């Protein structure tokens, strides 16, 4: 059981987030192209295009380098016999504490991007919503899932 210290996510998550950043930038580019079309065809004010372009350009270093790096450094999780703790957030630092007895079920899932890097997202569901631990290696995700399942015993009064 990996109790005590906080653990970081798998290092490959930085690459995943960079790839997500590229997709986000593609969306920005298509928005800019649409705005360019509207500006030329319907004579929309040019400042809308200019402001959007500036914001998109300014977001490039954040999407491709800074946010993936910061998120990787700030995201932590800790698993103990009594609780699961997650630390996250860049500007709003957030600590989430889920008592182990409140976990109703655990799910490991993998989207197309995570599949490329062989990573998993572990979702912890409670009676009041769910929390994700995104970007764990297959072995880690599996062992975490098993550990949580072993400790999360739902008693009648705990709901």
């Amino acid at each position: 059981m990996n109790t005590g210290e906080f653990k970081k996510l798998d290092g490959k998550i930085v690459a995943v987030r960079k790839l997500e950043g590229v997709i986000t930038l593609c969306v920005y580019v298509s928005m800019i192209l649409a705005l360019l079309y509207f500006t030329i065809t319907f004579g929309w004010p040019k400042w809308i295009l200019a402001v959007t372009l500036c914001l998109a350009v300014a977001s490039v270093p954040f999407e491709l380098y800074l946010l993936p790096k910061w998120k990787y450094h700030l995201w932590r999780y800790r698993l103990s016999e009594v609780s699961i703790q997650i630390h996250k957030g860049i500007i709003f630092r957030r600590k989430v504490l889920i008592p182990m007895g409140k976990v109703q079920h655990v799910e490991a899932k993998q989207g197309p991007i995570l599949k490329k890097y062989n990573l998993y997202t572990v979702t912890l569901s409670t009676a009041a919503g769910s929390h994700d631990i995104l970007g764990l290696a297959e072995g880690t995700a599996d062992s975490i899932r098993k550990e949580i399942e072993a400790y999360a015993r739902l008693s009648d009064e705990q709901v």
Partner: protein
Amino acid sequence: MNKSDTLIKHRLHPVSVLYFIATAIKESFSFIWLFPLLVLCIHKLGGDIPAFLINITLGSCLIMSFFVIGVLKWRSFTYQIHEKAIYVESGLLVVKKRWVQPDRIQSIDSAIRVYDHLFSTRTLTIELAGGEESGITLSCISKEEEQRIRTALKAETKDRPSEHAEDSMFQLSKSNLILHSLLSPKVGIVFTLLLLGLLKYMDISKEGDRDTLFTSLSGWFGPNWIMITAVLMAILSFALSLLLTFASDFQFTLRKNSKGEIEIEQGLFEKKKRTIGQDQIQAILIIERPIHRFLGYAEIKAVVIRNRSNEQSSKTVTLLPFVKKEKAESMLEPFTGYRKGGHLHTLTKEAKIHYMVMPFIAGCLFAIPIWLFVPSDYHNLAAVLPLGLFSLGWIGYRMIGWNQSSRFLTLQYGILSRKTAIMKRGRIQWASLSQTFMQERKNLASIKLAVASGKENMKFSISHIPIESAADLYQHALKTKE
């Protein structure tokens, strides 16, 4: 129970066909767009067929199909009462067979709807724990049948001795109900609707009609007709609000039965009776609206796990709609087992910057465009914005309070209405502690605690409290034993 009874497959009262028709209409909402499409298609393809004929034919077919589906659903819905369970079979194409056993039941609620009065019947809703569709509704059954089902299902419920074995009871008196109605937000809503109706009338009516109405009013009430009309509208609003409040809360009775469950009965035309087990209560919420607080009244709600699709949206159940605050607090523990913390901790002066200074600065920033763009006669109003936000922040700052005892956690918050949430140790599903850079510099933090409520969750949060207290509350969530 008679042995032969257990073998009989009971059907609901034939009038419950109406209930099944209503259910069928509700279920068809996602396909209802097909109807105008069909009308359009036939109209295009049919050529000479008049539109009204198509509408009438298809409309009749639709009504007939709903009726047929209703009858078939009624025919397919059967139940058997066994000694310690009931067996329900339902479904038209996919037949559902469900065994309802006492240990799976969350609550058994009954309601006497308007049409039930005509046939001396009632509607019973059995709420079960878990599963996607966890409510079974037995529409239009007799009182005797209800008793038989309740007896069969309660035969094996956990018969825990209650701390207060004697039946405790609270009934909302008529005078309190009238006062509750007068102070209810419904009065304001009805008054606004009436006013909007009058404005709309002014907008759409021709000059002549308008003159006729206002001339008639001035003719009836004399020179002060505007004032008298306003007073009459206020009286009408109150009367309508009274009717609505009577319809929902008439003879509101809260009772604790010998099993320790809370039973709530209410309603004038539609009498509802619901049972809430103490295990279902996740938190208690005391709400004091501004005028209520001034007069010393409060409303108490319970955050309850609901497992019924039509009640997912309401996260709380009203336990006491209108009661003196002292009485409410004294009744809270005997009825629910919850107790409000005595002394509440208040915010430190470091939090003032977040509650008062920041809203004041934001108000100043918003006031600039208002000052610039609003016509000169009114732009002085911009000064109200920062002062208003500052005052609201000050009220919010004074309202925050928290207390943590060995069994309960009390959070108090709000701006205009004061809300007090009481949670039991072990009911908190998760806790979140957040801190911004500004809060970090002042050693402050915000805390959010979630409890279960149906498929949704109910979150309670207080912001900008000292980090030590926030950490204490955060760790409190870990203590799972009550």
